[in-house]
């Protein structure tokens, strides 16, 4: 059964269906939610190239990320999807020799433009990593860390921590051990704590880099449910190797692949296709997408 059906029932009742007739039953909710062909972009890549030293990792990516939508980036290893994700909040700045050309626009403003503070960019555009990386601090301090370092105006930190943990569907599991080390939590709980930590600073966009790849299927399911809940408040971009995951939760999906240079053997990531998730999975327009989706390569 589709794990997201439950959480989406209310919104279905409020907004009567206007789904495309071709929709498969398992993907129905998605169509009901996102119908426009073009998203309202919160964040948008315009002709983005990313280089590491002289090596072009990704070329010519133009991709909008819709407001309060989940966009999944899928594709085989080495196709540059994580690289693109990291260029969306300037985490690539931390890599020696990395360079981003083109524009990444956040509400129309180029985050690589002059005078833009990468610190502020990262506060607005948060990131959850592949491996859960809680700080070696208490659960409480993990959540309070972001608001503290960004100097958020907080009336009561206790309330903020509780609210945030509730929103990250972790409160009931940790409310009696807030002062204990975050390392005592299970992997799935640690990852939800990392999500809580990210939403504590009230970002607009949450980037997730294969957030479930280190987790078991049940923990994965809970994170997916959480993402669908969070979608109402945040714009989410997720890189995933798991196509079923993209099919389950993403409103739109971008498929990347790697172009291999015949002479040098360099692999350069390119965007093949970007569309509604149902379209990508049921009726892709590019044969490479179809090959990947159906498991013929990758």
């Amino acid at each position: 059964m589709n794990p997201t059906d439950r959480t989406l029932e209310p919104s279905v009742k409020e907004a009567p269906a206007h789904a495309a007739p071709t929709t498969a039953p398992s993907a129905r909710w998605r169509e009901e939610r996102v119908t426009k062909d073009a998203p309202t972009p919160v964040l948008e890549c315009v002709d983005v190239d990313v280089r590491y030293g002289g090596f072009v990792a990704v070329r010519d990516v133009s991709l909008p990320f819709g407001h309060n939508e989940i966009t999944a980036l899928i594709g085989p290893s080495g196709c540059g999807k994580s690289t693109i994700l990291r260029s969306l909040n300037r985490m690539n700045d931390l890599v020696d020799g990395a360079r981003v050309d083109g524009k990444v626009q956040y509400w129309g403003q180029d985050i690589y433009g002059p005078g833009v503070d990468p610190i502020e960019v990262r506060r607005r555009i948060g990131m959850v990593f592949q491996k859960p990386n809680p700080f070696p601090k208490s659960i409480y301090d993990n959540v309070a860390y972001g608001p503290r370092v960004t100097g958020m105006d907080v009336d009561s930190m206790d309330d903020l921590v509780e609210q945030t943990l509730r929103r990250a569907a972790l409160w009931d599991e940790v409310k009696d051990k807030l002062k204990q080390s975050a390392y005592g939590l299970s992997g799935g709980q640690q990852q939800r704590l990392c999500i809580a930590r990210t939403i504590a600073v009230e970002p607009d966009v949450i980037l997730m880099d294969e957030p479930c790849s280190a987790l078991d299927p049940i923990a994965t399911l809970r994170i997916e449910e959480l993402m669908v809940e969070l979608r109402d408040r945040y714009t989410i971009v997720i890189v995933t190797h798991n196509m079923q995951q993209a099919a389950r939760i993403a409103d739109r999906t971008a498929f990347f692949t790697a172009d291999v240079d015949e002479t040098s053997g360099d692999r350069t990531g390119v965007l093949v296709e970007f569309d509604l998730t149902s379209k990508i999975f049921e009726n892709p327009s590019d044969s490479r997408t179809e090959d990947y989706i159906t498991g013929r390569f990758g």
Partner: protein
Amino acid sequence: MTTTTTTTTTPHQRLATDGRSRERNPRSVIFLVALWLSLFIALLTLLTLIVSTFIDGAGRLDSRLFTEFPSSRPQQAGARPAILGSLWVIGTTAVLAIPLGIAAAVHLEEFADRHSRFNRFVEVNIQNLAAIPSIIYGMLAVGFLGLLGVANKNIVIGGAVALALLILPVVIISTREALRAVPRELRQGSLALGATGLQTTWRITLPAAIPGISTGTILALSRALGEAAPLLLLGALVFVSFDPNGLLSGFTTMPIQIFGWTNNPQAEFRELAAAASLLLVGILLAMNALAIVIRNRYQRRW
């Protein structure tokens, strides 16, 4: 290959080696014995040293050693000023070297551009400084105090400067290693929340590195505690009959006191020297044990 041999050789037969393990051939045995002998010689030397010192000095390892001042009569002599002097000098050394060393390491590891020629030059030099004989640092301290116009160089701050310079490279290197052991994901997690580089260093990286830093620092301080050469160069006194009471106070330390006593003709003084040596060894072992405890207690959990 396997398809043709499986019919003739069972796996059981293939594992047997005619009763002679390849680990047991003569060359392996000779090599193992050589390794074992090397270890044995090292341990035997250490054991002989400790046991003979213990036999010599145990009789004088009493309260007088802690409470009495040096004296020309060995029965009344003690190492009280030397013990206090060591505490003063090592304490001051720690205050000078630890903040400087940690700050330098943080800069090199977290902020400096690894590819710049200047920083690579600095790195190579720190490695070299760690290998420089301690007496050179004594000369440096003498020169430094001379430039400042200090006539009597045998003062606590002078000795501390020499020892701090001596252990600074070691503190820097061990701090850098501790910082490097902090996973990059933690720094990225902090930066991704909108923390600045400085906040990340102060609140995440440094606290996570503290066990490693303290282990390295304690080991460096215990090295300084056993040093005599740079202090002798500063003109450290062998016979001090007062308690050091400040940074500008004259002083002696335990290694120097031991050195002084062994130069005396009377056998009783050598007994005293052995007793003081035992005390010094005891303190050093305690410091090293503390370093190990800290390392084990705060074992990395990531």
